[in-house]
């Protein structure tokens, strides 16, 4: 396949993408249905203003390789070097498996042999659609509807790449699986689609990383992530997005959690121009639980509109949201959350804790919670604080010989400790470096 670039959005372009991928008819139908919805749906009525010229965006850019490789040496040398510089290749040794998406296509996938023997599937969504159509079809688009919002519909129209993971029953991995998403071109849109199925009595930790170089043209990342957590299973999904400051990051992430299942979102937002992201747990099964631990750091021109959603359907379900936001240099970090305990979700508990640290007078922060319980036996606890670094805290640190910058750094890292402690060691170290560069 030669280099293909598709700019602008119309039905012909969508058919072209589908054609390139040699998809089955139901997938094209899904794309076209999504596109119709996208055209009729207005931009989100809440949150930051988004300035996007849909005609100027590149919706598809073909990969540099003809097929997914499992060896770095078989990739284009320039791309391999770029990934090496980003630390992606080095990180493979800490993982049980790793995938890389470059622009629109997944170019690399590999995992340790033990996982292959356990019948674990870790591949691109396109590959999965070809090889495991029944499995994909059972869940694809069922957890996040393509009629959910404008950007989920956009993703449904033009999705390309993303991971597919299937963990069979009674299977546990020792180390995480990781996917890395790289945007390299100007005006590029990335629309990956991730589907994760953790079958009954299993466990998965999945890590997603992403970066893009800083261009003046704004680009778009509109991903959809769907996760099914089976009975008595656990899934943990860790992301630290460090998109360049020209990327609009508009992502829909949702997990459906079955009986006694447990879903944990660990979600860090440091980069991007605008981020709108509210990882969601639908606690369908009785005694299922969901946690979302999120941080947002917003600096000049950045708007981080992030939070979480917890929908309690089953009885005795539990959810916890911990949100930490930092705004500096005129940035805007807003928590937007939605907790709903439905009528039948008896004896359920939800806890929401939002803390904001404002580093100067020109930065902004808002807390916009929506907490609703429809039965009397359940409770929602909500706690929110907004603070700045106090003179007394700085004085205490400085009176021990620590200079002001280092003192602020320690206090800020301390503020984010609840999040940092959830990350695997090498990621926590990387996050520290990232925060130091951004503060």
């Amino acid at each position, binding site marked *: 396949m030669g280099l293909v670039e598709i700019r602008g959005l119309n039905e012909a372009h969508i058919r072209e993408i589908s054609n390139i991928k040699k998809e089955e008819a139901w997938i094209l139908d899904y794309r076209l249905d999504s596109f119709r919805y996208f055209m009729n749906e207005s931009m989100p009525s809440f949150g930051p203003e988004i300035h996007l010229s849909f005609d100027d965006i590149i919706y598809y850019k073909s990969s540099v390789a003809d097929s997914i490789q499992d060896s770095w040496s078989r990739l284009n040398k320039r791309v391999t070097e770029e990934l090496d510089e980003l630390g992606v290749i080095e990180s493979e040794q800490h993982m049980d498996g790793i995938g890389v998406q470059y622009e629109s296509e997944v170019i690399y996938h590999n995992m340790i042999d033990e996982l292959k023997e356990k019948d674990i599937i870790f591949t691109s969504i396109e590959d999965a659609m070809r090889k495991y159509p029944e499995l994909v079809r059972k869940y694809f688009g069922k957890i996040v509807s393509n009629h959910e919002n404008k950007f989920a519909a956009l993703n449904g129209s033009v999705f390309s790449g993303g991971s597919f993971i299937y963990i069979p029953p009674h299977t546990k991995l020792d180390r995480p699986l990781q996917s890395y998403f790289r945007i390299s071109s100007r005006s590029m849109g990335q629309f990956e689609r991730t589907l994760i199925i953790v079958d009954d009595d299993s466990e998965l930790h999945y890590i997603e990383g992403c970066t893009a170089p800083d261009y003046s043209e704004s680009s778009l990342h509109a991903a959809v992530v769907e996760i099914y957590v089976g009975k008595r299973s656990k899934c943990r999904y860790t992301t630290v997005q460090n998109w360049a400051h020209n990327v609009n990051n508009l992502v829909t992430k949702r997990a459906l959690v079955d009986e006694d299942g447990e879903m944990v979102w660990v979600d860090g937002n440091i980069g991007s121009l605008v981020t709108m992201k509210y990882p969601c747990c639908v606690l369908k099964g009785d005694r299922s639980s969901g946690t979302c631990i999120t941080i947002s750091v917003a600096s000049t021109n950045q708007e981080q509109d992030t939070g979480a959603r917890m929908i309690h359907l089953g009885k005795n379900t539990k959810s916890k949201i911990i949100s930490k936001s930092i705004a500096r240099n005129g940035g805007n970090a807003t928590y937007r959350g939605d907790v709903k305990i439905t009528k039948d979700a008896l004896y359920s508990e939800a806890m929401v804790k939002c803390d904001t640290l404002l580093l100067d007078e020109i930065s902004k922060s808002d807390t916009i919670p929506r907490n609703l319980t429809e039965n009397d036996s359940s409770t929602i606890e909500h706690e929110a604080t907004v603070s700045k670094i106090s003179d007394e805290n700085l004085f205490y640190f400085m009176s021990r*010989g620590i200079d002001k910058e280092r003192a602020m750094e320690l206090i800020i890292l301390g503020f984010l400790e609840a999040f940092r402690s959830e990350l695997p060691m090498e990621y926590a170290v990387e996050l520290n470096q990232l925060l130091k560069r951004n503060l």
Partner: protein
Amino acid sequence: MQMNIEDLTVTVAEGKKILDHFSLALAPGSIHVIMGPNGCGKSTLSKVLLAHPHYNIVSGDIIVDGNSILPLSTDARSRLGIFLCYQNPISVDGVTNSEFLRTALTETTQERINVYTFMKAMEKGIEELSMDPAMMHRFINQDFSGGERKKNEILQMKMLKPKFVILDELDSGLDVDSLRIVCQNVNQYKEENPDTTILLITHYPRILEYIHPDYVHVMRDGKLVEMGDLSLAQKIEKEGYLGTTSMGGEHHGE
């Protein structure tokens, strides 16, 4: 460290005078006590010596070993060797005691400190202060009792090895056993580092049973009004601050 506080006048943001032409010379190795009723300005003095941002120096100077320290920031003064043991140490979420102390030590000595050496030294200090070893990995003073907080201050002193130690109301929040342990540690530090100057700020004379001062000063309305030896403190214990000289018409004690 020779410190001369010369004719120092200090106001707070609202313009209220807190120190009023205050002068005191502290020679290396000496132990001074400043006593006085609440609100006399003694805790302010301790913060002013470390350039707390809420206070303005109107006139006067603070000279350390011949140089004015007024241009120096809080952290630079700390690195000179001035240490304040706070009356009410704050707590900080997310920063562990060991992380904090190790950073302070690195910044103070400007040397990279071997983790193992540091841990050993910290463990030793913790043991000498009869603290829970797990405190190393707890956040700064988080869920610490008043006594644990004070012990933590003294632990920091022992590790940072200052030359000039200000003990602000060391005995507040301490039970008898903790007070004894804390004072033993201060005395031991003084013994091992005889040139250390100690400035003890206290409302109650009780602590002087444990730490024996060379000089006792009485402070009122932002200035020193009387100086003596231990017998002055004993007199205050018996008669209260009302018995001291230069009494104005107003009543300050509680």
